[in-house]
C-alpha cells in the first residue's frame, strides 16, 4: 500500500512549488468558464501558447486557462498578470498584437479595453472595471488565478492550509464551534445554519457517515456552483474534507448535474490530484483520519436537487423525496447519518478556518453573514457572476455592478430563487439582499439566480413558464403537486391565450394554497411562489390579460399581432424575404403588408426590420383587433 504523505512532506512540497513561482513573471490568464468556452476561449489560449513558443518567450511568459472570471458578457476575457491588465472580447487576430505591444513593449491596446458605458472612459485594470469594483470576491477571488486542473496553483495560494490546521490543531467540536460562530448559512436555498447541521449529524452515533456536496444546480439562470466547481474545485474538496472530519465521515459524494460536463471533468481531475498529494484516502496528511470522495453524475431531473431525492439518486433509484423527519443528518444515504451542503457553502469553509469565524461574521448583516455569489442574467447589460457582501442593495447590484438594463429599457422586476422564488418589483429595489428580506418580499434567496426583467417581459408568461417548469419536473409522488401544478399551468396558459375568465385569479390562489400545504418536498411547497408574488405585485397585468385580452408587454403570442406601419415602411423587402409563412406582400419601395390570416407570429419580420426603420411593431388589445379587421377587409377586397 502507498505510504501516506505526512504534513511535513506536504509543506515541503508547498515550499518547492513556491520556489518555482515568480509573482513578477508575466502570466496571460484566459478565462476558461463555460461562457467563455462557448465564445471560443480554448482556441484563444492555445493560440497564445503557440505564439509565445514561436517567439521563444516561454521562459518569461506563462499562459494559463483559469476558472471563470465572472464577467461573461465580455468574453473571451484575457487578463495579463501581475499588472491585471484587462482585455475583453479577445479574438485570434488580437493575439500577436497583445504579445508584441503589451507583453514586449508594455503598451496598452486601446481597442481591447473595456469602456465604461456611463463615463465612456476606457479602463485598463481588471479591479477598476465597475463590474468588479463593488464586488467582494472572497470565495470567487482565486478563480482568475488558478488553473483548475493543476493542484499546485491552489497549493501555491495557500490551499489545503485549513485542512492541516483542522487535522492537527482542532477537534471536531472546535471545528463545529468555529463554523457555528461564523454564522455561515447554507447557500443552497433554505439558509439553514451550516454549523448547526453539522452538529446534529456529529451527535448521531453510527459507524458509517457520509458527506455530500450538492452540485445539482437546477435553478435556471443560476450557475455559480458550476463556476466554482469548474474554476476552483479544490476549495470545495477542502471544505468537504473539513466537514467530514467534523462529523467523522469516511466517504463523500459530489453529485453534479449532467449538463455541466466541464465541472464533472475538473472535479474528477482535482480529486485524483488530491489523492496523489495525500489529501484524500487513508491517513490524510499522516493523521488518523481517512476520507475519500466520489463523483456521481445526475441524470436530468430537477427534483434531484432536493436533498432526500438526491440521495435516492445516488442509491441508483428514482429521485423521489422522502418524508422528513428523520432528517438526512439522522438517516440519510443508505439510512446512515449524512451531511449535505451546497457547493458554495463548502467553498466558504476553508476561508472561515483560515481567517477565523470573527472575520467572516464581520461581513454581511446581522443574520446573513459573509458574501453571496449571484448570477446576474436576463435583460441586463453586464451578464455575469457577482460576489457581494450580504445586505447590499438590489439597486447596487443591478445598476452599479450590472450596468443597468439592456437597451435603456425600463426595469420591471428581478426574479430570484429560481422556480421556488418570486419576482421583486421596482419599488423594492432599495431593499437589502439577505435571507429574511427576500423572504418577506415573497421570494427567496435560493441558490442565487437573479434574472432581470424589463418592460418587454410579460409577468403572466413568466409565471406560466415557472409553473410549466415545476409541473414538468414534479416527480409525481404527491397528488397536490402533480395534479395541482397541472391545473395551474392550464389556467395560466388559458390566460395567456386570451381565454382567461373572471375567477381565474381566485382559482389560482386556491390551488396554490392546496399545493403548498399538501406537498412533501420543497419543489411542491414552493412551486406556486412565482404566481403568488406575481399576483402580489403585478395583478394589473393578469387583469389586462383576462378582461381586456391584452398583453401589456406584447409577449403572449395569441394576444398580439405583428403590424407594418405604412408611414414607416421603406419597402426594402427584408421582412418579405425572411417571412417563413409568406404572409408578407409588397414590392420594392412600396409599403409591405402582413396577411394576418397567414402570419404564424414567429417574429422574424420584427427581428430583421432595420433599427433605423423600425416599421414592424407588435400590437395588442384593441389595436390588435383593429389591425386584424383591416387585414380581413384587405383580403376581401382582393
Amino acid at each position, binding site marked *: 500500500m502507498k505510504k501516506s504523505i505526512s504534513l511535513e512532506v506536504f509543506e515541503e512540497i508547498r515550499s518547492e512549488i513556491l520556489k518555482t513561482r515568480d509573482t513578477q513573471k508575466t502570466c496571460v490568464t484566459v478565462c476558461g468558464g463555460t461562457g467563455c468556452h462557448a465564445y471560443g476561449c480554448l482556441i484563444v489560449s492555445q493560440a497564445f501558447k503557440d505564439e509565445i513558443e514561436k517567439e521563444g518567450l516561454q521562459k518569461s511568459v506563462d499562459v494559463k486557462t483559469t476558472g471563470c472570471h465572472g464577467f461573461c458578457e465580455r468574453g473571451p476575457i484575457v487578463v495579463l498578470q501581475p499588472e491585471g491588465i484587462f482585455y475583453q472580447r479577445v479574438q485570434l487576430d488580437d493575439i500577436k498584437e497583445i504579445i508584441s505591444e503589451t507583453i514586449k513593449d508594455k503598451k496598452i491596446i486601446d481597442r481591447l479595453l473595456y469602456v465604461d458605458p456611463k463615463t465612456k472612459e476606457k479602463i485598463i485594470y481588471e479591479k477598476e472595471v465597475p463590474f468588479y469594483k463593488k464586488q467582494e470576491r472572497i470565495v470567487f477571488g482565486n478563480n482568475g488565478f488558478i488553473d483548475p486542473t493543476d493542484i499546485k496553483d491552489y497549493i501555491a495560494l495557500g490551499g489545503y492550509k485549513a485542512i492541516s490546521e483542522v487535522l492537527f490543531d482542532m477537534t471536531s467540536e472546535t471545528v463545529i464551534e468555529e463554523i457555528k460562530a461564523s454564522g455561515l448559512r447554507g447557500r443552497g436555498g433554505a439558509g439553514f445554519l451550516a454549523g448547526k447541521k453539522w452538529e446534529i449529524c456529529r451527535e448521531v452515533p453510527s459507524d458509517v457517515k457520509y458527506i455530500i456536496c450538492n452540485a445539482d444546480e437546477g435553478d435556471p439562470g443560476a450557475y455559480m456552483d*458550476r463556476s466554482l466547481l469548474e474554476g476552483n474545485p479544490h476549495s470545495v474538496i477542502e471544505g468537504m474534507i473539513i466537514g467530514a472530519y467534523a462529523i467523522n465521515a469516511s466517504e463523500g459524494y459530489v453529485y453534479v448535474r449532467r449538463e455541466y460536463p466541464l465541472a464533472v471533468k475538473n472535479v474528477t481531475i482535482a480529486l485524483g490530484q488530491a489523492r496523489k498529494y495525500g489529501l484524500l484516502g487513508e491517513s490524510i496528511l499522516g493523521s488518523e483520519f481517512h476520507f475519500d470522495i466520489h463523483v456521481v453524475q445526475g441524470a436530468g431531473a430537477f427534483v434531484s436537487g432536493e436533498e432526500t431525492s438526491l440521495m435516492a439518486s445516488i442509491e441508483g433509484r428514482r429521485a423521489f423525496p422522502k418524508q422528513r423527519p428523520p432528517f438526512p443528518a439522522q438517516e440519510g444515504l443508505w439510512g446512515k447519518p449524512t451531511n449535505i451542503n451546497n457547493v458554495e457553502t463548502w467553498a466558504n469553509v476553508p476561508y472561515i478556518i483560515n481567517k477565523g469565524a470573527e472575520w467572516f461574521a464581520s461581513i454581511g448583516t446581522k443574520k446573513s453573514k459573509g458574501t453571496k455569489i449571484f448570477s446576474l442574467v436576463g435583460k441586463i447589460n453586464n451578464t455575469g457572476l457577482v460576489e457581494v457582501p450580504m445586505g447590499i442593495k438590489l439597486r447596487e447590484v443591478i445598476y452599479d455592478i450590472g450596468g443597468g438594463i439592456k437597451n435603456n429599457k425600463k426595469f420591471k422586476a428581478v426574479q430570484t430563487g429560481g422556480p421556488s422564488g418570486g419576482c421583486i418589483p421596482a419599488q423594492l429595489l432599495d431593499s437589502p439582499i439577505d435571507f429574511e428580506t427576500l423572504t418577506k418580499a415573497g421570494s427567496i434567496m435560493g441558490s442565487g439566480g437573479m*434574472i432581470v426583467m424589463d418592460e418587454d417581459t410579460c409577468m403572466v408568461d413568466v409565471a406560466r413558464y415557472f409553473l410549466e417548469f415545476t409541473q414538468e419536473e414534479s416527480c409525481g409522488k404527491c397528488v397536490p403537486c402533480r395534479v395541482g401544478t397541472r391545473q395551474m399551468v392550464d389556467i395560466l396558459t388559458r390566460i395567456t391565450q386570451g381565454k382567461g375568465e373572471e375567477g381565474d385569479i381566485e382559482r389560482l390562489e386556491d390551488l396554490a394554497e392546496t399545493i403548498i400545504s399538501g406537498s412533501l418536498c420543497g419543489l411542491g411547497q414552493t412551486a406556486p411562489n412565482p404566481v403568488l408574488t406575481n399576483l402580489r405585485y403585478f395583478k394589473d397585468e393578469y387583469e389586462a390579460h383576462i378582461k381586456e385580452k391584452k398583453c401589456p408587454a406584447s409577449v403572449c403570442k395569441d394576444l398580439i399581432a405583428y403590424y407594418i406601419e405604412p408611414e414607416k415602411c421603406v419597402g426594402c423587402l427584408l421582412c418579405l424575404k425572411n417571412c417563413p409563412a409568406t404572409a408578407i406582400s409588397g414590392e420594392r419601395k412600396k409599403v409591405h403588408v402582413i396577411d394576418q390570416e397567414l402570419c404564424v407570429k414567429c417574429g422574424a419580420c420584427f427581428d430583421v426590420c432595420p433599427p433605423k426603420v423600425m416599421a414592424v411593431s407588435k400590437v395588442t388589445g384593441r389595436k390588435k383587433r383593429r389591425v386584424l379587421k383591416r387585414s380581413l377587409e384587405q383580403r376581401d377586397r382582393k
Partner: protein
Amino acid sequence: MDTGIEKIFEEFSHDQKGLIHILHRVQAECGYIPPQAISKISKHLRISEGEIYGVLTFYKAFTLKPRGKHTVTVCTGTACHVRGAPMIVDELKRKLSVEVEGTTEDNLFTLETVNCLGACALGPIVVVDGEYHGQMKISEVDKLIEKYKPEKKSEG
C-alpha cells in the same frame, strides 16, 4: 455492440448503486437504451426489469429510442426565456417539422430543450452536437440548420 455493453458491467458490483452509472454508459455507447440492455442490466444488478424501466424513464438523460444524427438543443432557462427562446423553439419546430423530443423523418435531427446551460450571457442559445450558437435570432435558424444538412447541390 453486445460485448460493449457487457464490458461496462465489469466495473460495477451486483447492486442497484451502479444503475444510473451503467445507464449513462450504455446511453453514451449506443445513443439510447436498447431493450436487450435492460434485461442484461437486470441480470447483472439483480434487480427487476421493471425497476430499471422505472428509473430510466424517470430521468431525462436516458432515451428508449435512437436519436437523430445531430442533436439540436435549445436552452430554455429563465434568462434565455425572457430573451425569446420560446420563439426559437417554435421556429425550429416549424423548420424541422418535429415536436420537442422528436426526431426528423430522415433521422438527421433530434430537437430537445434543456432547463439551463448556465451560459446566460449568450442567451438565447442553441447547441448543436455540443457546439454553442449564442444570441440566436429567428432569422438565423434556417442558416444554422442548413449548416448541418449533408451537402447537396442547391436547387436554385
